[in-house]
């Protein structure tokens, strides 16, 4: 639809929107200037990424002799594979933590969102507002007692502790998204289901969950990125290297290689690849998810 309107509007515009001589002269300059500015901003924005990629595939002497922005004198892909091998345990831990956390978050929040959106009960709006507010609770308010609780439960330095905590932290936002989504699904589907003889659980499971697929893909992409990228819980809740996620891993990697910047950059690239791939592949879902809930970043 957007395409249609822009086409229609671009046809008569030259004839209609003549404006003053000054404005007509300004037009091409304005546009050229705008494009130039946009390109410049994009370049500046992209420099950190570009520089890191460049650094990752070079040797240290190459960097010190030719400067950080020169093209590599030789491409050292071995840096990346070496970094990958060293990061492997952390990547593995991140996968083991992230996937169940995302799945758990989705299940719990879909159920809650369905109830908040489609059922009429006392305290519903109140409950919803509490959940919205909770999505702003800073991690700092929970760090200490959660650390203590996990130690008491004997869950310190386990994957389970991290999974539980991630689900807990993501519940408010995910419930908000799912509630808002289910609000857009016609309530008659639930009534049709009731008449067809479905129980509340069956209606949820066989009608609303499948219908929620578009919202789910957006939520999955967002939650995956956020949980994968978390650092503080990974620092606080782990001890040995086996349970540390890749965000903690990159820090120890940095400590290990100190000024071997090509290796540090390689480590950063390897650590960033999973979320980057997900982001590039599902950018649309990612953006849609952000604008659906639009609170975090």
């Amino acid at each position: 639809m957007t395409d249609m309107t822009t086409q229609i509007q671009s046809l008569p515009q030259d004839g209609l929107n003549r404006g003053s001589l000054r404005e007509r002269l300004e037009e091409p300059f304005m546009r050229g200037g705008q494009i130039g500015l946009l390109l410049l901003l994009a370049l500046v924005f992209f420099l950190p990424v570009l520089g890191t990629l460049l650094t990752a595939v070079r040797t240290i002497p190459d960097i010190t002799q030719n400067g950080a922005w020169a093209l590599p004198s030789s491409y050292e892909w071995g840096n990346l594979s070496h970094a990958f091998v060293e990061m492997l345990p952390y990547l593995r831990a991140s996968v083991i933590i992230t996937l169940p956390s995302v799945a758990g978050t989705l299940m719990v929040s879909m159920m809650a969102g369905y109830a908040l959106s489609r059922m009429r009960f006392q305290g519903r709006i109140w409950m919803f507002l509490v959940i919205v507010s909770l999505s702003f609770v800073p991690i700092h308010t929970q760090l200490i007692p959660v650390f203590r609780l996990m130690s008491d439960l004997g869950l310190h330095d386990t994957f389970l502790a991290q999974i539980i905590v991630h689900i807990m932290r993501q519940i408010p936002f995910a419930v908000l998204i799912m509630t808002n989504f289910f609000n857009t699904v016609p309530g008659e589907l639930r009534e049709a289901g009731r008449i067809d003889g479905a129980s509340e659980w069956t209606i949820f499971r066989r009608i609303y969950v499948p219908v929620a697929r578009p919202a789910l893909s957006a939520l999955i992409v967002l939650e995956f990125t956020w949980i994968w990228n978390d650092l503080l819980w990974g620092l606080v809740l782990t001890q040995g290297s086996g349970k540390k996620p890749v965000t903690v891993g990159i820090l120890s990697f940095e400590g290990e290689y100190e000024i071997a910047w090509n290796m540090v950059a390689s480590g950063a690239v390897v650590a960033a690849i999973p979320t980057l791939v997900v982001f590039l592949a599902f950018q649309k879902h990612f953006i849609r998810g952000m604008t659906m809930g639009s609170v975090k970043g």
Partner: protein
Amino acid sequence: MAHVTINQVIKNYGAVRAIKGIDVGIEDGEFVALVGPSGCGKTTLLRMIAGLEDITGGTIEIGGKVVNGLQPKARDIAMVFQNYALYPHMKVADNMSFSMQLAGASKEEIRVKVQDAARILNLEPYLDRYPRELSGGQRQRVAMGRAIVRNPKVFLFDEPLSNLDAKLRVSMRAEIKSLHQRLGTTAVYVTHDQIEAMTMADKIVVMSEGRIEQVGTPLDLYDEPANLFVAAFIGSPSMNLLEGEVCAGGVRFADGTMLHLSGTEGFETGRPVIAGIRPDTFELAERGLAVQVNVTEPTGAETQVVGQIGDTPVTCLMRERISGRYGDVLHVLPHGPVHLFDPGTRLRLGTARAALVN
């Protein structure tokens, strides 16, 4: 198949009483239309029959069994929703058979029933499609198919045609009616469109503000509306209502003109009445009621004259091709029944007929 009995039914939303004690008896196999303006409680009543709304007071019986406490699925009813409520992620065949799947019917049984329903509704080529791949009329038919497959005691329709364009609405109207005649299942049909109600129903229940105004066959309501509400609601264009008072030999209107009537002898002279005259009963006359023309709207077969008698707006449907302009005056006389209503109670007093003037 079953009869439905609605007995003193009340519905409260908080402090608001939406349904104020309603009694309706629906015979086995009957097609009943609940009709009225929006907010009159017709949809609420239907949803109470379906079990989607709690019943505050009174009872609803389906097939002789009180269903007040029963879940929708235990009531043996099927419902067609205004927006069809088709499951968007299921193909047509699955949409139609979802209830049977839930009930644990065998694959073979499901296949046969779905095929039967699809044949009746001409949906056979579409069974493998998703709802989004269908036209509005086809979706409508799938919604009906979903109801037919269940073979329920009662069909419930909630304004099922209101999302279709005018032409399709007319053909679906006939289709639903013939379907009902073929299946013979009791049907309750909610609509705000009185023409739909008139053309389809065996019996019409006219509702307003949570009450029943009148129950009867379409022609009963047309010929003998029980009160001013029904008089104005049934028939299109709607009945002209003129204030006046009984005088010797007829009724005198506010602008001073008199209409000679037979059948007003029983009323005392000077009694205020409202005379209801259907637009299509007017015919041109030498003398008679003076209609000041505002516009004339030719439709080919007839001409609709919109004007006023005194200060009261009137509509006349004339068979002649009249080309009146603003300010012209036409003289007309009613050649049909003139309904008399009491302005206070708004109830029907009786029917008079225009007398020949000498």
